[in-house]
């Protein structure tokens, strides 16, 4: 039983990280007032690029993760051009990104022969003697580098968003772009940066799926995790730490499902397969019932900004 619990808990961070990073990326983008429904697409792009990079370079998984983030950021330039430059409807543009990325990743991976090719990805990074501490060791100190890095990434993002001038301006752009513009903030620049950085984090989450977790690329392998990240952002009401908590909740469920099955515990399997979705649903219901709490949904979310336009 102890082994079961330790194995379970030790596996939670690996499942939580892609959700956490993707949700954080979306929060940064949406804080600037740009609604990004293309998460699934950016995740696919990162996943494919990460896998391709490892295969082509024959290793260097950390560099591959950087390439994964960069590839998603590059694709985000298209999204930024549509939503910020041309002021196309953001919902449509986001969905378009998903379909574009599905086709593009499939095309590139097929052309390059990256599909279904196993590779050596990023392994665990045990922290010296710390990993030998009973119980705590395997849970906290025998993870991969990205798991360790996720914590400081969240600290930095939360600090920048809430405690710095840059964060204040970013939030102002998302809350009231007219006022921010009048105060001399460059709306286009802030939104562009938020879209690019956000997509890079979603791409990193995708790269994590292939380079760290699966160590293989197959078509469409984000498997709806981008959509779950979008739900997480709503659940977290645009607060980074709540998003991390939500991601850990999903990590708990995803790590539990195969372990319950492998242990032969007699829970109906359809119930287990339903669990992540039931949790999503429950979380959404709970959030909407608890609306009285402070939501920091940006007021201008989804609205293109046109200077001097009256509302």
């Amino acid at each position: 039983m102890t082994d079961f619990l330790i194995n379970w808990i030790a596996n939670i961070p690996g499942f939580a990280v892609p959700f956490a990073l993707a949700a954080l990326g979306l929060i940064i983008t949406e804080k600037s007032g740009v609604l990004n429904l293309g998460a699934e697409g950016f995740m696919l792009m990162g996943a494919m690029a990460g896998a391709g990079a490892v295969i082509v370079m024959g290793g260097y998984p950390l560099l591959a993760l950087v390439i994964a983030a960069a590839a998603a950021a590059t694709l985000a330039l298209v999204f930024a051009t549509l939503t910020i430059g041309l002021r196309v409807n953001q919902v449509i543009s986001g969905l378009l990104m998903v379909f574009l990325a599905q086709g593009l990743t499939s095309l590139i991976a097929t052309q390059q022969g990256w599909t279904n090719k196993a590779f050596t990805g990023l392994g665990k990074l045990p922290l010296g003697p710390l990993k030998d501490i009973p119980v705590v060791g395997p849970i906290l100190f025998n993870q991969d580098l990205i798991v360790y890095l996720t914590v400081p990434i969240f600290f930095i993002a939360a600090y920048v968003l809430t405690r710095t001038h840059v964060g204040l301006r970013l939030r102002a752009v998302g809350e009231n772009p007219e006022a921010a513009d009048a105060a001399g903030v460059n709306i286009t620049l802030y939104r562009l940066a938020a879209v690019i950085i956000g997509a890079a984090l979603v791409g990193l989450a995708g790269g994590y799926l292939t380079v760290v977790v699966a160590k293989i690329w197959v078509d469409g392998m984000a498997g709806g995790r981008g959509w779950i990240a979008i739900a997480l952002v709503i659940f977290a009401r645009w607060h980074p730490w709540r998003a991390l908590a939500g991601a850990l909740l999903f990590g708990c469920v995803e790590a539990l499902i195969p372990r319950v099955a492998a242990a032969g515990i007699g829970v109906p399997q359809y119930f287990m397969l339903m669990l992540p979705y039931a949790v999503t649903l429950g979380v959404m219901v709970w959030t909407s019932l608890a609306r009285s709490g402070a939501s920091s949904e940006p007021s201008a979310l989804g609205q293109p900004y046109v200077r001097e336009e009256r509302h």
Partner: protein
Amino acid sequence: MKRLLATAMTAALAVGGVTGAATASGFKLDGDPKPAMIIFSQKNDGGWSQALDEARQKLETSLDMRIPVVENIPENATSIRPAVELFIDRGHNIILGSAFGYSDTFKELAEKYPNVLFLNPAGITNGDNLKSYYGRTYESQYLCGMAAGAISKTGKLGFVAANPFGLVNWTVNAYALGAQAVNPDATVTAIYTGAWNDPVKERAAAEALVEQGVDVIGQHVDTPTPQIVAKEKGIHGTGHHRDLSEFSDATQCSSVWVWDRFLGPEIEKIAAGEFEPAPYGAFLSIAEGGTDIACCGDAVSEADKAKIMEARQAILDGKHVFAGPLNDRDGTERVAAGAVLGDGDLWNMDWFVDGVITQQ
């Protein structure tokens, strides 16, 4: 994928394994056979579709004809119809499908083009010029189960499966029966991922199995991920769809599609005007060109390999994997002594044999 789900439903209709009387329909091709293939996903998917495409390439050689292929035609009528009609316009008169999701559109097109013959794997529709087909995968998975049982030191086998319904459940059960033919105490712990093509979930399942002490991992999912995990953990595995030793030298046996062995003679029969329609489609054994095994890796001893090949011969000679007396793990009799499990019961299989550990 949807294609397989409905194969199960289909055959639920084919109660009791009634097979069509072997009478020619009188279907005649206009001119020489000119087949063309339409694949619903990318053709080098490493599994199901690639096996079909490889069969196509073998047929090009054995039948000495060019068989064009088009890939990524999604399972909806608005995508399928133009692809098929383009081939027909170019003079192709045998259309080879690839998915359950093609069933309804193929039925409709078969009625519209009575001079064109349609063959569709994992389909559920049939007619005078339309035949669906699928393989008796339990035969090959039984043999791979024997290999797994022979190489396992702990007697604990794992199995990563997709969705819990008939055609997946029968591979799990056959795998366990095969393993127990070699090691009567062998158990099979099966995890259903709920997805055909999700390497993240497959890895999670395979790793959870290794934590439980299994030392051979079988599979009925679309990616080779369970085999790769087996390699990383220094244990063994068995594959599905194609010979997965290409991805992982941990793989000791694979249940492989051998569609060319069915399609070759079938196309020749069609060309000779001897096409036999089947009201419930063709349900192909090893002998008829459904699946076979790619066996065995180095970990299987010569003696065990001989045993497996002997069992394969017995199946070719007519031995049924689900022959009575056979009880499920709760003790209910499923097949009486002297009887074999009917095809309808196979497609509806929702029970597990003794030694299978899985959730209900």
